[in-house]
């Protein structure tokens, strides 16, 4: 696993830095063959467990796969994703802008840090999922509630990562920029933000992961739409293969999104890592 990106991650209540770690996609450096073997083995274990069967509610891998294509064919899965992905995308984008902005301000400006950061430390360590039923009660079952659910979960990690990255910027580069007559704005633009960007990106990835949790949770708890509704619906009809297929698809989608984000980050924003 690639070491070196400090994600800080959730609940560091005292702001102690967690050990260096890059979540999601740290196994990129493995040869592709091993990954395929790993996937095949996982599918085989699933298939065997389903054949035994472990439980009446545990379909085999092949049944689940068939159910997955069935769901795509009858259009219910694409429709559900249409309804789920809109608030997810909106919430994540809003959280990204708001979070990076707020985190940067708090990292640069002490009174902002004092006033705002403790709130996010609490929100980060606490089970904010408890708010989601409340949000859905207030804002109904539409887009707003789901977007808010995404933001409640995604915002803290983005703010805190950005804040920590800006705060812990490489001191020697700051001095260097000052000695070559950099202005305050140049220091922020040319040193602080580039230096902080790996950790900010890690925060954005964690934010996206949290956003997936938020939207699924909102749909499962109250809002009878989207992926959450599909899961609940098939559970109530005991169509376990369809239910598992839906769940596996959202986990796969979240994983692929995170890997894609990392790929984009390295390709577009971190030229020095490309050949490394």
């Amino acid at each position, binding site marked *: *696993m690639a*070491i070196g990106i400090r994600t800080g991650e*959730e*609940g560091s*209540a*005292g702001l*102690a830095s*967690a*050990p*260096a*770690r890059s*979540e999601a996609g*740290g*196994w990129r450096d*493995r040869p592709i063959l*091993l*990954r395929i*073997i*790993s996937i095949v*083995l*996982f599918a085989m274990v699933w298939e065997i467990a389903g054949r035994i069967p472990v*439980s009446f509610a545990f379909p085999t891998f092949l049944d689940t796969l068939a159910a997955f294509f069935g769901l795509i064919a009858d259009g219910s899965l694409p429709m559900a994703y249409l309804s789920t992905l809109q608030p997810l995308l909106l919430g994540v984008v809003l959280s990204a802008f708001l979070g990076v902005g707020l985190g940067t301000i708090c990292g640069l400006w*002490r*009174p902002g*840090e*004092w*006033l705002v*950061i*403790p*709130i996010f*430390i*609490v929100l980060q*360590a*606490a*089970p904010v*999922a*408890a*708010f989601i*039923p409340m949000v859905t*009660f*207030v804002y109904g079952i539409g887009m707003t509630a789901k977007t808010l659910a995404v933001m409640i979960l995604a915002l803290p990690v983005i703010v805190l990562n950005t804040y920590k990255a800006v705060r812990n910027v490489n001191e020697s580069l700051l001095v260097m920029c000052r000695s070559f007559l950099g202005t305050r704005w140049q220091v922020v633009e040319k040193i602080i933000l580039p230096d902080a960007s790996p950790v900010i990106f890690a925060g954005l*990835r964690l934010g996206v*992961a949290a956003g*997936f949790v938020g939207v*699924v*949770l909102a749909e*499962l*708890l109250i809002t009878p739409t989207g*992926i959450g509704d599909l*899961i*609940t619906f098939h*559970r109530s009809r005991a169509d*376990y293969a369809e*239910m598992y297929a839906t*769940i596996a698809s*959202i*986990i796969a989608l*979240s*994983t692929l999104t*995170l890997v894609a984000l990392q790929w984009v980050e390295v390709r577009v924003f971190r030229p020095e890592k490309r050949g490394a």
Partner: protein
Amino acid sequence: MTLFGYRVPMMASLLVWCLAWEIVGRLDLVFLLPPFSDVLRAVVGLVQTPSWQGATLTTLRAFVTGMTLAIVIGVPLGVLMGRVRVADDLLGMWVNIFSSAPLSALVPVLMILFGFGERTIVAAVFLFAIWIIVLDTRAGVRHISPSLIEMARSYGATRRALYAKIILWAALPEILAGIRLGLIRGVKGVVIGQLLVSIIGYGALFETFSRNFRMAEFWALTIILFAFALLIAELIERAEAKVEYYAGARQ
């Protein structure tokens, strides 16, 4: 921050927010937000009710069981992945996927596999907490300086002694960090699990309070939960501080 020459601790700003909450609550601007003093009163009232005590007991029991399982299984698994290349190659990908996947989607599966009871909650805590413990333990074991292991070998350490006296200790800072993050995820797991099952523990209480718009009690329960989460994080952090000196010295 310093104010008039005094250093004001950062967490002190939470008091300012509580004050703002009180004012907004008094002004009756948002009906969801009763004054903070009412909420505090509700906390005092709530902890005396048998329903809260029962819910707390259920919740704690499920949390402790799930966390114990996650630690007992997660740490050895992490050590295995850190030491054995094949295990790492085969499992690493899945551990990484599950550590950042929307696990809340899996809770309905747990519900049909384990029923609408405490076992589902235990499974949810376990499922939320274990992956980060495995990842951090693995990272810790990977970080151990090879010369430390060679040292132990050269002095004739048995395999057992190597693991018990060197590897586990050298990786301890990361293991504790993993457990701390795991505990926080575990708290989220217990709450999400109970919210979805919604007939036991705090989930049932939340359900009752928010359905009937008993806001003071809703917020009181939230505060108790948040305080519990922060307390756990703080306690583990204390333990981490004790081993931090050599975590820093190793780099």
